[in-house]
């Protein structure tokens, strides 16, 4: 399921059990850990992923990010959608 299929406004993205966002002290970087997978999370991805708590809707996450970083809402929405769809296809995000 992609964000759009899940109804972008109402879906509440969350990292499923078995997928963890971790700040790795030994490497000094944020990592997304899943079974047999390690993905480096850049600063933007970290801000997005921290908000995927299964409570906030997609729209609320986008609003929050756009406000926090004074960014164009359309651009933020497309960045968030791209990341969540990519992770969902890897079973690293539940929508």
């Amino acid at each position, binding site marked *: *399921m*992609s964000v759009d299929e899940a109804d972008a406004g109402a879906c509440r993205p969350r990292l*499923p*059990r*078995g*997928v*963890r966002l*971790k700040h*790795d002290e*030994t*490497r000094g970087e944020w*990592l997304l*850990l899943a*079974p*047999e997978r*390690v993905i480096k999370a850049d600063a933007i991805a970290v801000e997005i992923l921290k908000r995927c708590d299964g409570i906030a809707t997609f729209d609320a996450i986008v609003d929050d990010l756009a406000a926090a970083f004074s960014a164009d809402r359309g651009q933020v929405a497309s960045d968030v959608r791209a990341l969540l769809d990519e992770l*969902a*296809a*890897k*079973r690293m995000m539940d929508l």
Partner: protein
Amino acid sequence: MNAAPREIPKPVGLLAELTHRCPLGCPYCSNPLALEPRANELDTEAWLEVFSQAAALGVLHVHLSGGEPAARSDLAQIVAHCANVGLYTNLITSGIGLTEARIQDLAVLGLDHVQLSIQDTDESSADRIAGYEGAFTRKLEVARWVTDAGLPLTLNAVIHRANISRASAMVRLAVELGARRVEIAHAQYYGWGILNRDALMPSAEEAEAAIAEVEALRAETKNVLVIDHVIPDYHARYPKACMGGWGKRGLNITPSGRALPCHAAETIPGLEFWNVADHSLAEIWESSPAFNAFRGFDWMREPCRSCERKTIDYGGCRCQALALAGDAREADPVCHLSPHHAAVAEQAALSARGAETNPHPAYAYRRMRQHAEAE
């Protein structure tokens, strides 16, 4: 040979063979032929120290494996400790020895993920491959307990002659069982696998058909299941980047505490392995002779040394080079540039010949004592 490598990346994964005890007898087991008896196993405290050091060294994933890790009565304590020190904790299990209560306990203690092996989708074939009656039925129960406990499940199937016609059925079974990920891994020929090679090797046609069927399921299972497909390298043109490069990404610890660059490294003569009882994990990772033996590119011979793919596949698998070319420093003979490549294809054809005449060959089951002759 022991020239200090320029920069050694931190290890990403640690595979802990907590024990070699296992109720199953799978004929392709990745454990060595000489299995460690219980008396040699590290005690609880020693394992906990290994995991503390692993986390400090930068290990991210820890794979609790065996043998069957559930054979250790301190499994819960080990899982709790791994979770406490921040390791992503994966249990690699046959399922035998786990109970619903034990799985729920592990989930509460912070286990991140369970990888459950499955031998076939056909019950009698599955039990025959495992050498354990009732294994298949039990595994289906275990899968349900795992997902009921809220734990993510990966189903792992090793593919060989006896089950290759059901490779795609394994993918469908994984979906039915609620797994989020499936590993379809064609048998690799080391240790028990090489001992049973003539009984395990499918024909090239069977392998191609199974690979195509599984690949075709990717679209259908998109967003439901991740398919990790390990295809057989005997028929390949280039070798695999074994272990992601020697001493580059991961390490194995045997039940008695020897640190190995890979499962089969002990088959390579002349390597000196250090034990966690004598050295810290950091010392072992950075300085032990075995880990430095094939790091970097200085050890390479031709055709690897001048090959532009050496940074991609690192010359392939050292253990396979030893097994098939007679020397661990040679190119992995799976590579078409290896002078031994033709012999690999011949061996594959020879081993697969039984596929036509003997679909249910006798296995030398993996057993604790000196391996028995094929029945």
